[in-house]
């Protein structure tokens, strides 16, 4: 049995089933099938599978398919319409708020109430500045330590750094993680 040759005949089997094989090739195919047990078995299996597929009827949907389609189409159209309405409402609200804000502020200023927003803004700005300073200090300290570690500290300093880092980790674990775990247990 020549496997490569058989492969070609198996391809011909598919064409033969579709009536797309010429008379000469058909003759050659049948002559090969008659002399090759493996291809004869494949040909039988191909024909069997093919007749099973041909025998299978068209599957039909449940009655009322068109009605269900119309309902679904209407629902989806309604969903799209609602989304569009909400989007337009949202955009309209933002535009209106932007237009109304100057008028509102001028009324507040005239009535003397505008002082409150100014105080709030000033307070928020102070908090933001403070947070910025703290974060900056931490970053600067970390950066200094990294630079120091990279430029080659002496053996003693290195040991000191490792001990300090380990101590901080243990402390943090005890204080924060331990407390959280304790809370969870309770």
């Amino acid at each position, binding site marked *: 049995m020549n496997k490569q040759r058989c492969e070609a005949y198996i391809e011909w089997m598919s064409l033969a089933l579709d009536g797309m094989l010429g008379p000469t090739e058909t003759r050659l195919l049948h002559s090969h099938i008659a002399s090759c047990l493996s291809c004869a078995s494949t040909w039988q299996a191909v024909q069997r599978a093919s007749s099973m597929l041909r025998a299978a009827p*068209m599957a*039909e949907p449940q009655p009322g398919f068109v009605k269900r389609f119309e309902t679904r189409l209407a629902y989806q159209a309604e969903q799209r319409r609602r989304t569009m309405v909400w989007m337009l409402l949202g955009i309209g609200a933002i535009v209106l708020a932007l237009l109304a804000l100057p008028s509102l502020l001028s009324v507040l200023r005239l009535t003397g109430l505008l002082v409150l927003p100014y105080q709030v803004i000033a307070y928020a700005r102070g908090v933001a500045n403070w947070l910025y300073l703290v974060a900056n200090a931490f970053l600067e300290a970390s950066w200094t330590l990294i630079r120091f570690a990279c430029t080659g500290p002496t053996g003693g300093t290195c040991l000191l750094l490792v001990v300090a880092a380990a101590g901080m980790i243990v402390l943090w674990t005890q204080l924060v993680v331990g407390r959280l775990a304790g809370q969870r247990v309770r």
Partner: protein
Amino acid sequence: MGDQEQTWVEQALAGDTAAFSNLVEAYQKPVYNLAYRMLGNSVEAEDAAQEAFIRAYTRLDTYDPSRKFSSWMLSIASHYCIDVLRRRRMTLLSIEELPPMADVSMPRSAHPEHLVARGQVADQVQQLLGTLPEHYRTPIILRYWYDMSYREIAETMGVTESTVKTRLHRARARLAECAQQGRDLAEGRTYEQATL
């Protein structure tokens, strides 16, 4: 494309949903059958067929009247089903993890015509189709249930005729192998012997 269909398409493009419903009425069966054969269960098939019609309705302006409406519709449905199968593959077991082909076994005495009478062929067919990857399953379905030529299958799938020929050949070889294994198992041989 028939004059009536062309009229329905034009009316639907003008916003007449009732005209599109006529197209749904005319093509519900082939579209549903394609979805059922691709997906293997009626619930998903119903959903896929409905979604295919919705997509066709929303993309109706891209329809080329020189093509057959049925081919265009089946093309949308088959692409949608392939997407569903790919999504499903992400979440479910792969075909290799399923038990061996014991379920597709067919007793030696059971000729297909007799099985039709007993209402068993439908299950056998779905199990056989289920062994094929989606890009092999589509040409088999279009060939056997819609009697499409290689050129029509190629147009529907958006591939070349040569690809269709190759896929049909490989799909049939695989189906034959599965049918053979099923038969061997039914005859009492072990799965290992059957696969040798």
